[in-house]
C-alpha cells in the first residue's frame, strides 16, 4: 500500500511537468481548433463553431499543397541523409585511427549544434546570387551565376541542401553508435564464413542498425513536419510558395492572419500525419528487426 504511494510520489513531478508542458497545451490547441478564434478580430468573438475550422482546412487547396510539398521535402532529404550518414558511419567505424574518429565525431556535432535560424542565415549567404559560395563554385567551373533563392525549384533544392548539411551528422552519429554495438566476435566469426563486404553488412551489421534507425526516422520526420526557423530565415516560404512547408503555412495563418482556430486545426492535422508516419516506420522496420 505504502509502496504504491511512494512510487506515485516519485513519479508525480515528472507527470506534472509533462502534463503542464505537453498535455495542457495540446488540450488547449484542441479547444482553440473548435472555436472561432482570430485574436486580431476580437469583435467576431471566440464562440464554439464545431468542426468549421477543420472543414475549411480540408477545403483549403493551399494547405494540401503545403502538406504535399512537405512530403516531397521528406522524400528529398531523409533518404539522402540516411545514405550519407550511413556511409560516414561505416567509413569511420572501419578504420584504425582513433584520433581521426574522435575528431570526426566533434566535427559532426558542429552542424547539429548550430541554431536553425543561423543555418538559415548561412544558407541565405551561401546561396546569395552575387557573393555566395554556391555561385563561386559554379563560376569556378565556368558557369553563369544562378539566382538560387529566386527560382522555385532551385530554392527548394537549396533549402534541402542546408537541411541535409545540418542533419546528416545526426544519422552518422547514431549509426556509428549502433555499429559499435555489433559484437566483435560475431563479426569476426562471420568474416571466417565470407569475405564479401555486402553480406557482412546485410546479415551482421544491419540488424543492429535497425532500432536506432527507426528512432532517428521518427525524430527526423517529426522534425521536418515542424521545420520552420531555417526555412523561414532563408526563403520565408518563397519564392511564391516554392518552399512553403506545412509549418510555415500554419504559422502564416496563425500569426499573420492571426486565425488561430484554423491554425490549431492545421497543427493537429499535421500531428495526426506525423503519428501515422511514425506508426508506419515502427511497423516496417521493427518487424524486420525482431524477425
Amino acid at each position: 500500500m505504502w509502496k504504491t504511494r511512494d512510487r506515485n510520489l516519485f513519479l508525480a513531478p515528472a507527470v506534472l511537468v509533462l502534463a503542464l508542458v505537453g498535455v495542457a497545451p495540446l488540450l488547449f490547441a484542441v479547444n482553440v481548433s473548435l472555436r472561432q478564434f482570430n485574436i486580431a478580430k476580437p469583435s467576431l468573438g471566440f464562440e464554439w463553431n464545431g468542426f468549421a475550422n477543420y472543414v475549411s482546412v480540408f477545403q483549403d487547396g493551399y494547405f494540401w499543397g503545403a502538406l504535399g510539398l512537405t512530403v516531397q521535402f521528406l522524400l528529398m532529404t531523409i533518404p539522402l541523409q540516411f545514405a550519407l550518414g550511413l556511409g560516414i558511419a561505416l567509413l569511420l567505424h572501419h578504420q584504425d585511427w582513433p584520433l581521426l574518429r574522435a575528431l570526426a565525431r566533434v566535427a559532426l556535432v558542429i552542424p547539429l549544434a548550430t541554431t536553425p535560424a543561423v543555418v538559415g542565415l548561412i544558407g541565405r549567404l551561401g546561396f546569395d546570387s552575387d557573393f555566395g559560395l554556391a555561385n563561386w563554385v559554379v563560376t569556378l567551373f565556368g558557369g553563369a551565376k544562378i539566382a538560387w533563392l529566386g527560382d522555385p525549384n532551385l530554392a527548394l533544392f537549396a533549402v534541402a541542401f542546408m537541411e541535409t548539411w545540418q542533419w546528416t551528422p545526426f544519422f552518422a552519429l547514431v549509426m556509428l553508435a549502433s555499429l559499435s554495438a555489433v559484437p566483435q566476435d560475431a563479426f569476426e566469426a562471420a568474416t571466417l564464413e565470407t569475405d564479401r563486404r555486402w553480406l557482412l553488412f546485410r546479415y551482421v551489421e544491419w540488424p543492429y542498425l535497425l532500432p536506432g534507425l527507426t528512432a532517428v526516422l521518427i525524430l527526423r520526420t517529426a522534425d521536418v513536419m515542424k521545420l520552420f526557423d531555417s526555412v523561414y530565415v532563408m526563403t520565408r516560404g518563397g519564392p511564391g510558395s516554392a518552399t512553403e512547408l506545412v509549418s510555415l503555412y500554419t504559422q502564416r495563418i496563425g500569426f499573420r492572419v492571426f486565425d488561430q482556430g484554423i491554425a490549431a486545426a492545421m497543427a493537429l492535422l499535421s500531428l495526426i500525419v506525423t503519428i501515422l508516419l511514425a506508426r508506419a516506420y515502427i511497423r516496417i522496420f521493427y518487424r524486420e528487426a525482431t524477425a
Partner: protein
Amino acid sequence: MKNAVKIGVAVGVAAITGAALLGAQGTAQATWSVTEAAKPYAGTTIKAVYLDRPGYKAADKLLPEFEKLTGIKVTSEVIPYENTREKMVLDFTSKSATYDVALTDVVWIGEYAANGWLAPLEKFTKDPKLADPALNLSGFFPILLDSFGTWDKKLYGLPFDNYAGLLFYNRCMLEKAGFKAPPKTWDELMTKYAPKLTNAKAGQYAYALQSRRGETQSADSFMRMLWPFGGSLIDAKTFEPNLLSVASQKGLQFRQDLMKYMPPGIVDYDHNEAVNALNQGKVAMITEWSAFNGTLNDPKASKIGKCLAVATEPAGPAGIKGALGGFSYGINASSDEKKQAAAYLFIQWITSEAKAKDYVRAGGVSARKSAYNDPAIQRAYPFTVPMVKAWNQGNPVFRPRFPEWPAISEIVAQIGTEMMLGKVSVKDGATQINTKVKEILTKAGYYSGAKPKLQ
C-alpha cells in the same frame, strides 16, 4: 434667504476656483515646457518599438536630449519589419504592455484603432498640462497625419517615420547610355531606357523592383504597378475587387513585361537587395522608399557615390500615383497612465516642429512641412524635394488601411509572386486574388452594410 446666501457663496466659490483654474491654465500655457510637463513622470521608463531603419537611428541620436530634459528614460526594441505586427498584436491582445510607444504602419492603423489597442490621442492633446501649445497638428503634411495617424476621424498617432516612393537612379549609367534625365513615364522606362541599360551577360540590368514575398511583394511591387495605370485592388465606392478591370490588368501585365529588364531572382529581392543592387552598380534604377536615402548615400555601403540621383516615380497613364508608406507613433492603450503620459510627451517631442530639422539632419524623415521649406535642407537633402512633391499629390489609399488588409496582403504576396514566376497567368492570378478578397470582405461585413466602408 439662507438658501440664496448659500447659492451666492457657492457661485462665488465656483467663480473663484474657476478663475484660479483658468489662471493656472493661462500661466501653464505661457510657460509650458517639456521639462515642467514631465516633472510628474521623471524616472518613468517607457519602451518604444524600433525598426532597423535610418529614422530610428536618427531618433536615437536625439534621445539623450529628451532624457536630459525630462528625466524620462526611453528604451527600445529593434524588431524586423516583417515580425513587428505579430509581436505587437500579441502584446496588445495579452495586455502585457511591453511596448508603450506603439509603432503603427499605415496599413495597421485600421486594425489597431478599431480593436481599441491604441489610446486615442485627444485625451493628451486636449490636456493643457501635457499638450505643447506649439503642437500645431496642421503643420504636418495632411496626407501623412490622415493616413498614418487617423482612423475614422480620430487621431491615434503622430507621423514619425515617413516615406514616399522615389526613383533612385545611377546618373552616370544613364548618361553613358545617352540619357540626360531620368524617365518621366513608366512607358519610357520600359521602351526607351530599359533596353539600353540592360546587358544580362555583364550582369547589368535597367531596373530592380523589390518583390520578395511579404509586404514587399504586396505593397512595393504589386500595388506600385496598379495605380499609375489607373487600376486598383478594390473599387473605392463599392469595395468590389477590381483586379480584372482593364486598367488593373494593364498594370500587372506591365510589371510582368518589365521583368526581362530586372535581375534574375527578382522575386527574392527585398529592400536591402534592391538598394544593394543600385549601390553596387548592378542596376541603373530602383523605385524605393525615401527612407533608404541614408543607406544609398552611405559611402561605406555604396560604390556609386556622386552618381546617385533621385526623382519622383515615373508616371503612368493615370499620373504619378507613387507609393505611400510610413509609420506613426501612438500609445498602447494597455500601458498604465503614467507611462501613457510619458509616451505622449516623447512622441510629441520627437515629431515636433522644433525638432523637425534636427531629426532630418540626423537621418530621419520628418512629417513637418516647415522642415522642407528651408533651402539649406533642400540643398543638403536633395531627395526631400521630389518627396514633398510626391506627398503633395499622394494617394492616401495606396493600400487600404482597413483591418482586413493584413489578411489580403498575405494573399497578394503569395499569388503575386507566383504570377511573377509564371506559375499562374496574370489573369488567373488576378481572378484568384479577387475571389479571396471578396471572401474576406464579405466575411468582414462590408457588402451587407454591417460595417461602414472605410479604407
